[in-house]
């Protein structure tokens, strides 16, 4: 194979991820005169929270306002590399392998700040692979980044205040919200009703949210989804009762899981904490994972944009040799709130066990629940074992979608699997790029 020339770059701090956490950190490092490079896989900055079309940046909450100010301040910053995927970490040399604009680059940082964010989590059902079933996050991204309404009407199903937020944006963009089906019963949510409406957001859209609230149902789970002409037929079940709804689009979302793959490759300790979203990075109260590696944002626990912002600033201050006890306090407050929120809007454990056999679990390899169950009954109770036995997680997404599902299924069976160990490349890339990394 022809050898590509590999550029090598040194920096003091590598920030992995340009979401609100990574950007907040970059800004603080600039103020403190520190040397850094921030990389992000996407062709745009801002991660999940700030990926709006620049023409439409709602300044309706203090966090958004701060976030968009960061986006503006850092828009032309040369030390921020978009289109740059982290693919590997080499322990022997402390080097990080990247693919920048399709070409390999090696970075040798003295310290690393991991801010790789989170992805969505799903409770699958037969039919969830149909093209008209998409994630709630995708609906949000289509609307806020591209101003594109993916359908005229939609049902939003799953759990969490995020569903309501996306349904709200869908309605505001002109879509018809047929129903918001919150999986958890109202009784479970009552103790935490303030979380139903993020107070920051409430000011602008309170009336709207109230309107949507009338469209929200509680305690129904999706049993299956089928095509019915041009529409989807969604069968809901609640305590043995069934109801059928028709819709053009079904948007689903069951919470978030942290993207810990790069951190695992760096050898950072991870812990399972359901109240933080599953496998998360273990840090001290100064966000340190190990001597030279720090973490900020969703990777330390699912807690939303405000928490990510605070953690990005805090980590960068610590990296600049400073301390800030008031930020630490704010962070502790956000963590406590996050834990309550995640525990309230969790998928009831028994539902992982009642996923029907024919349901596809691994979308890349079309592996069904039946195959996963059989593997588990044959004593394949590690993710690695299940992967070998069924091919689940062997496809392009490398288990990012199915492993969190299989993990919850096994945990519901009282088995606690380890997270699967990670090898480079963290995400599949064109082989042509990779030839010269050895």
């Amino acid at each position, binding site marked *: 194979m022809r050898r590509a020339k590999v550029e090598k770059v040194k920096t003091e701090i590598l920030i992995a991820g340009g979401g609100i956490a990574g950007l907040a950190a970059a800004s603080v490092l600039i103020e403190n005169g520190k040397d850094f490079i921030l990389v992000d896989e996407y062709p745009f900055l801002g991660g999940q929270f700030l990926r709006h*079309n620049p023409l439409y940046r709602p300044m309706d909450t203090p966090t958004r306002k701060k976030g968009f100010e960061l986006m503006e301040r850092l828009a032309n910053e040369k030390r921020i590399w978009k289109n740059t995927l982290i693919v590997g970490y080499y322990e022997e040399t402390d080097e990080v392998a990247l693919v920048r604009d399709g070409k390999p680059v090696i970075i040798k940082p003295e310290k690393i700040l991991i801010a790789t964010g989170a992805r969505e989590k799903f409770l699958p059902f037969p039919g969830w692979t149909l093209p008209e079933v998409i994630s709630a*996050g995708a609906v949000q*991204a289509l609307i806020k*980044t591209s101003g594109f309404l993916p359908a005229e009407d939609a049902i939003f199903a799953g759990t969490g205040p995020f569903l309501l937020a996306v349904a709200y944006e869908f309605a505001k963009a002109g879509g018809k919200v047929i129903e918001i089906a919150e999986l958890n019963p109202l009784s479970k949510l009552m103790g935490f009703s303030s979380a139903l409406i993020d107070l920051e957001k409430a000011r602008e859209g309170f009336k709207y949210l109230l309107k949507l609230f009338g469209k929200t149902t509680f305690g129904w789970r999706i049993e299956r989804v089928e095509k019915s002409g041009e529409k989807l037929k969604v069968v809901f079940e609640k305590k043995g009762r069934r109801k059928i709804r028709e819709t053009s689009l079904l948007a689903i979302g069951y919470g978030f899981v942290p993207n810990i793959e790069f951190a695992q490759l760096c050898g950072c300790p991870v812990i399972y904490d359901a109240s933080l979203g599953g496998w998360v990075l273990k840090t001290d109260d100064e966000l340190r994972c190990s001597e030279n590696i720090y973490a900020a944002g969703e990777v330390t626990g699912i807690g939303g944009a405000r928490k990510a912002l605070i953690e990005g600033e805090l980590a960068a201050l610590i990296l600049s040799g400073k301390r800030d006890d008031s930020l630490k306090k704010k962070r502790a407050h956000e963590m406590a709130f996050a834990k309550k929120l995640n525990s309230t809007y969790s998928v009831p454990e028994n539902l992982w066990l009642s996923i029907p056999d024919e349901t596809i679990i691994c979308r*890349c390899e079309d592996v069904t629940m039946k195959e996963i169950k059989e593997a588990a009954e044959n004593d394949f109770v590690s993710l690695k074992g299940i992967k070998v036995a069924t091919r689940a997680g062997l496809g392009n997404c490398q288990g990012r979608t199915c492993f969190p599902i299989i993990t919850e299924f096994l945990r519901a069976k009282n088995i606690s699997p380890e997270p699967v160990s990670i090898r480079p490349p963290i995400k599949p890339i064109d082989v042509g790029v990779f030839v010269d990394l050895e």
Partner: protein
Amino acid sequence: MHTKHALIKVNGKTLEAREGEMLAVSLLRAGYKRFRKSVKGEDRSLFCGMGVCFECLVKVNGRTVRACITPVKDGMEVEFEES
């Protein structure tokens, strides 16, 4: 943003798209509803919209990419299996 137009080729047909917009969005706008056939032959389309699930894989200028995080560029040649 998104006012500049780009001419791209989709499975040989010329399409006017918005320069810089994510390719998956341009394809959805143009009425393409499926991007990939699964291992068992099911139609798949955009699912996560954020580069995680790889359901939106298409070929651009011969290289496999995730359409949801690939910006449209003038002259792009896009290929995928239509249902």
